[in-house]
């Protein structure tokens, strides 16, 4: 088997491809580094010169506005030059291969590639072929991983709950197709969270998900009992009606997060969502906008976490 391609010989972050296989110390260093950038985002001049003169290429083979924007803001706050490439509508549709696209961009002196791709593992393929001074950050690959989202979820949990070794966290909905869920599960288990639950119908659970270290619940009220945090997953439109689910309404009835269901959790439970939300499908507006929701702070933390990751792979974090 190949060596863990994310770490260099000194055990430092060379690329960020997945939380799976990241040592605990590296995750903790990302969270600590993000702390130092929270201050920057709150200043009047929201910039530090850590990546001055460096180029960050946002390579999005799949459309995304939100994630691409947060990476762009993070890179700009580190003073990097940012180039956005929406490959979904450019060279790939002209038949250029993935590696040719990357080789061309590499010839334009890239330092960091932020990659989103519809196929699991695509960032690994790119990471195997870039030059040693170039770094790859996975911004979501198929169902596999979305490590910066997972890290910002961890950051949020740590901010509100402090000690991972005392937590019960429930992840609800379409785990089968969710890279967000996989990344968060690996992060939580690595940091020693004793109880990670996944809640959803069997059609939305991948085979052998228990092997990732989670407990599976079909009944939402039972699964939410005494939880410290609830992470709702986005349900894609095309999956709301078909072989996986009969209708969005029925899904909401069983697995939509309402104030009533949330009452089974601890009184100080926090509610998270990676966005964009489907109100009335996976989450009720009263909960999304209610006192337990930390959905908007997640977005703010996301920028600091992405700044931390970029500075760490570039080897310029303090």
């Amino acid at each position, binding site marked *: 088997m190949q060596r863990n391609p994310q770490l260099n010989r000194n055990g430092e972050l060379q690329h960020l491809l997945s939380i799976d296989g990241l040592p605990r110390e590296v995750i903790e260093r990302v969270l600590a580094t993000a702390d130092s950038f929270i201050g920057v985002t709150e200043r009047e001049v929201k910039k530090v010169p850590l990546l001055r003169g460096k180029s960050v290429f946002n390579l999005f083979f799949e459309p995304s506005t939100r994630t691409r924007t947060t990476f762009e803001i993070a890179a700009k706050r580190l003073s990097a030059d940012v180039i956005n490439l929406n490959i979904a509508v450019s060279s790939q549709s002209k038949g250029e291969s993935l*590696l040719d696209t990357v080789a061309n961009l590499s010839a334009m002196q890239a330092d960091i590639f932020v990659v989103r791709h519809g196929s699991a593992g695509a960032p690994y393929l790119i990471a195997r072929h870039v030059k040693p001074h170039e770094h790859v950050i996975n911004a979501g*690959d198929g169902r596999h991983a979305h490590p910066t989202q997972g890290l910002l979820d961890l950051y949020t949990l740590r901010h509100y709950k402090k000690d991972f070794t005392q937590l019960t966290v429930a992840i609800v909905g379409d785990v089968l197709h969710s890279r967000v869920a996989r990344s968060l599960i690996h992060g939580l288990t690595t940091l020693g969270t004793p109880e990670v639950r996944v809640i959803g119908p069997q059609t939305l659970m*991948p*085979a052998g998900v228990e092997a990732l270290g989670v407990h599976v619940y079909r009944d939402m009220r039972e699964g939410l009992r005494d939880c410290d945090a609830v992470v709702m997953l986005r349900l894609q439109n095309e999956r709301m009606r078909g072989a996986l689910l009969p209708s969005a309404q029925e899904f909401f009835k069983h697995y939509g997060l309402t104030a009533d269901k949330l009452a089974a959790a601890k009184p100080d439970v926090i509610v998270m969502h990676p966005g964009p939300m489907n109100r009335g499908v996976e989450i009720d507006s009263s909960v999304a906008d209610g006192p337990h929701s930390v959905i908007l702070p997640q977005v703010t933390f996301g920028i600091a976490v992405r700044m931390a990751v970029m500075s760490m792979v570039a080897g310029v974090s303090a």
Partner: protein
Amino acid sequence: MSLRITNARLIDPASGRDAMGDVLIEKGRIAALDGDARAARAERTLDAAGRVVAPGLVDLAARLREPGEEYKATLESEMDAAVAGGVTSLACPPDTDPPLDEPGLVDMLRRRARALARARLYPIGALTVKLQGETLTEMGELSESGCVAFSQANVPLQDTQMLWRALQYAGSFGFAVWLRPAEPWLSRGGVAHDGEVATRLGLPGIPSFAETIAICTILEIVRATGTRVHLCRLSSEAGVAMVRAAKREGLPVSCDVGVHHLHLCDIDIGYFDSLCRLDPPLRAQRDREALSAGVADGTIDCVCSDHTPVDEDAKHQPFSEAAPGATGLELLLPLMLRWGAMRKRPLAQTLARISCDPARILGVRSGRIEIGAPGDLVMFDPEGSVRLTPDALKSQGKNTPFLGYELPGQVHATIVAGKVVYERE
């Protein structure tokens, strides 16, 4: 033309013989053994001191990519690979472009192969026109032009009534049907075994029951028709158990496994290694153990290379988009020797699965060393190991998860019909 081989460790898996001896080939057939061979005159003599001489290998699945896919490989390159790997007879599945569904195509392919004068080629004809599962092919005509069986290759027959009719028709003339058991709806979109590894990597899965449901369907139709069926490329523990029970019941079924599946499992995908994308997918460790045990106890009749040369670009893709398959002609012997050593089996028993056993399924007399059998032999050094590099492979397909491995079984010479068709420099 006569050829004598002396001082050989002569292994005939069919009889279990494993002893020093000599062999003489005359007019393309084995004419004498041991003392008689030593006493006879021969135009050429090969000294096999320190080496094993065994029947040339018989491979039930090698894609040669002709006609239509010459950018992946050519008949010439792949026939070179076959004899360099000690393979003297091979069956090629009909999934060429166009598929082998017309006697003219089969005829041309065989003529090209004969002109190259390397390994013997046994084409498997398409069971349905263009493999589309709608119209039966002219099996009688195809058989006359040289097809030894009929198959859908890796293209599943969705329509079970068509499958029933195809087996009835083929059985009427005594033709065997070779089927890859894969339920098409359950396999749809999947690229890896539906288990922990696929879940971790976020790869769409193919459950093991995609195979067992298809086997169940096929066996029911075999019960109804009595047609002889060969099941290709088993991949699961449950599949092996079903074939074991079917054989005990006395059904006319046989089966094979691809040699990679005896060594690898889904864990070997590691960080999305597209060289481990195979069809059927590599399954779990316990499936690999069951396949291995099935080959050992004879439930699985034989092992094939499932040779699938793929061009480099088609593997330089994210796992799900990469073309499935591995090059195999030159790995069949080394990987079988490695398997035999791991299971501590006598060499003759290991070689049986890649010589006399597949020959029996093909219905040919190759794969054995006895007077009158075809003079097809391989001479190899069972101890000497070879480091597998892209340059060392004659096949145009360099796609194998075993690149960089040291593997046993250096082939020194390959003989087809008494002619030396490969000799290591």
